[in-house]
């Protein structure tokens, strides 16, 4: 029997238990807790953004662009006017999705809703601007994209305003970030910064869609040289539709879908002459393959900020020769003295792991295509990073300072390259508005089968790519690398492949008919009896 006083005691105990267990975890869903946020921040964010939010974490010295410095409350991706602080939704978007084309990943799947809300609150606490009640961030009215944006006429209008409002000054005539002002660009902190390559919208910090681009035109990317173009609308120099046309034109420069890696380059057999020039019209009919490149971070001196982020590759072969065309975006035709100051800024911004920091110099652009010395019989391939002392790889190397030539040789590790005599590899290159196009050609057969790979059809030939942008301070081990992919020399499918099944079908049908006819003959014979 439980008395009344005992009942009260039980009640208190239960209440206390509920208080202790539920209390600390139940909160309104939109509450933010900077104390909890700090724990999340220190675990996941401080490595790059620094303990005090100044963008100076241990990882910061390896990055271009560097991590955000939260102390100034200057944010690129906003829906507010230039100069205003961002909204919470703006910050949450960057936390959730990350910033494409930078080291900032998306955290939506890595952290819980609450963790992201809490860390957002903590990040805001680094700057007094968020606590300043005179700051009133207002979301701009962006309107809706007008119809007809992908028509030829609309894109022409977009192109016209792309020129007239000066986009080309930084982003270049063809949009590859190679405009006349591009080499001088710095962010607020004086770090080197590239004008975006508008042909790679999957790397746009603020997202790839036409709406994303329009919003960035309206808000600008604060902290960077990219200004807001809203005043053009407010002062009636441009209509909203015209500014949308600029966004649509910019969007049209990139592929409709981000490139997808297909592992095997198919080189069809062609009966016409081998296309030795990068602009031979024969290349138009050939399929393109894209391969991502990343910084070489295995071997000293490491390189975390490569400028070449991918190569587009096509290949064909004739009965006796092969042609391989590699195309990549590069903002400068190095060595280019206009970019020397930029090289200096890059070297100053990125920590070198050499004992003596390098002096800026005018390095050329380079490309290397790598194969094994012989087509491997099993799954074993040489070390992808330029082989090793005992397991060399066969490479074609092209340097922009002697653009219509290539050298073949054996690489024995990243620091040793031995050119081969009579290599027989030729190259032709073209530079056009921020794009290198280089064609390598060689005979399929090789006079020196011990070190120069003979190309054969019917076998997957491992291939890898390396690129250097001299105007980004890249040379030696400071380069962009790919892993192994494959090249396949396709043979035309023999006629028998098509004829045999037809023959088999005809034969089967004939035999079937004979069997049926015989069976019918027997049946009618029995009936007659």
């Amino acid at each position, binding site marked *: 029997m439980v008395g009344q006083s005992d009942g009260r005691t039980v009640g208190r105990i239960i209440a206390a238990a509920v208080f202790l267990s539920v209390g600390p975890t139940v909160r309104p869903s939109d509450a933010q807790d900077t104390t909890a946020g700090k724990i999340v921040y220190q675990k996941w964010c401080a490595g790059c953004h620094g303990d005090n939010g100044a963008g100076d974490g241990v990882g910061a010295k390896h990055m271009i662009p560097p991590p955000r410095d939260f102390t100034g409350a200057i944010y690129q991706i906003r829906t507010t006017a230039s100069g205003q602080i961002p909204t919470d939704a703006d910050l949450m978007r960057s936390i959730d999705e990350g910033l494409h084309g930078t080291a900032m990943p998306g955290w939506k799947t890595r952290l819980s809703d609450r963790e992201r809300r809490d860390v957002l609150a903590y990040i805001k606490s680094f700057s007094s601007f968020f606590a300043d009640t005179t700051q009133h961030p207002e979301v701009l009215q962006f309107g809706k994209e007008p119809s007809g944006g992908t028509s030829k006429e609309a894109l022409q209008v977009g192109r016209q305003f792309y020129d007239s409002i000066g986009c080309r000054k930084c982003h270049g005539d063809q949009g590859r970030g190679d405009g006349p002002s591009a080499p001088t660009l710095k962010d607020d902190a004086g770090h080197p910064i590239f004008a975006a390559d508008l042909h790679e919208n999957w790397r746009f910090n603020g997202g790839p869609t036409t709406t994303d681009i329009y919003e960035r035109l309206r808000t600008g990317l604060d902290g960077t040289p990219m*200004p807001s173009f809203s005043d053009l609308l407010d002062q009636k120099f441009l209509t909203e539709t015209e500014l949308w046309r600029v966004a649509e034109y910019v969007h049209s420069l990139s592929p409709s879908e981000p490139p997808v890696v297909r592992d095997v380059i198919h080189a069809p057999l062609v009966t016409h002459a081998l296309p030795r020039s990068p602009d031979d019209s024969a290349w138009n009919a050939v399929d393109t393959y894209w391969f991502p490149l990343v910084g070489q971070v295995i071997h000293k001196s490491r390189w975390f900020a490569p400028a070449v982020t991918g190569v587009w590759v096509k290949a064909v072969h004739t009965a006796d020769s092969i042609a391989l065309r590699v195309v990549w975006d590069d903002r400068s035709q190095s060595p280019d003295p206009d970019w020397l100051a930029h090289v200096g800024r890059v070297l100053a911004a990125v920590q070198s792991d050499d004992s003596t920091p390098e002096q800026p110099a005018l390095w050329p652009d380079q490309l290397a295509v790598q194969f094994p010395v012989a087509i491997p019989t099993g799954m074993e391939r040489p070390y992808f990073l330029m082989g090793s002392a005992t397991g060399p790889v066969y490479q074609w190397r092209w340097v922009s300072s002697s653009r219509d030539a290539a050298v073949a040789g054996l690489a024995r590790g990243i620091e040793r390259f031995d050119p081969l005599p009579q290599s027989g590899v030729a190259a032709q290159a073209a530079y056009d508005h921020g794009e290198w196009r280089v064609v390598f050609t060689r005979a399929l057969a090789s006079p020196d089968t011990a070190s120069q790979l003979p190309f054969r059809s019917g076998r997957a030939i491992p291939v890898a790519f390396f690129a250097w942008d001299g105007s980004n301070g890249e040379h030696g081990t400071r380069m962009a690398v790919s892993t192994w992919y494959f090249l396949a020399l396709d043979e035309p499918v023999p006629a028998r492949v098509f004829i045999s099944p037809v023959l088999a079908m005809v034969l089967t049908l004939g035999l079937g008919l004979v069997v049926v006819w015989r069976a019918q003959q027997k049946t009618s014979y029995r009936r007659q009896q």
Partner: protein
Amino acid sequence: MKVRILSVVGGLFLLTVCSKGEKGNAAAAPAAPAAPTAAPTSDVSSAGGTITGKVKFTGTAPRLATIDMSEEAACKAKYPTPPKEETVVAGPGNALADVFVYVSAGLPAGATYPTPATPVVIDQNGCRYHPHVLGLMVGQKLEIKNSDPLLHNIKAVAKKNRPFNVSQPTAGMTRDVTFTAPEVMVHLECNVHGWMHSFAGVRPDPFFAVSGPDGSFTIKDLPPGTYTIEAWHEKFGTQTATVTIAGTESKTANITFAAK
């Protein structure tokens, strides 16, 4: 009995939720610092004291790089000879122009001064800012205009004020901006034309000046007192001087920078 226990539990539960909620909100939006109590507007009498002086430098003026305006024919055409950078604008006898001179200490604490209604104008003309160095008060309008038929962007790099970056792609565009906090200096730059820089001294009081081509400056209407004046130069850094003003007298404070 059971009802009572549940209500107690429920009540405590609600209390917990509420108190946590408030705590959370407080953390999200920390209380704004109390607005400074408005001190009485001080008498800026036109009969105050004056500080005048000349700014000079010792040593050799650095050689100024010629600006390559070949990308901008419309700007290039405005100069009979190729223009040079404006990092050190020297006059006869090593006079130094474009030095921002202001009273950095000595004014009565808490005094406020009326904000001038007339805006300060900065013009982008010939791919240069005019003026190269300027001063204005907190809350005073800065009118930024473009007289060039081409794209300029105006990026303000500031720490105490909100930085911004706006574009003026055509002649005839204007934009008014104001600054909310004193800051020496707010840096204005154009990223399209990397040589274009301007510096704005933002002050809470009207006691500032920019040295002219002969290096001279005048700060007027100062109430009696002992002042520290600070001189800021883009390349040579800062110098300070102390001046005591009694009544309506005019005092001289010459400033000398060392060229570096």
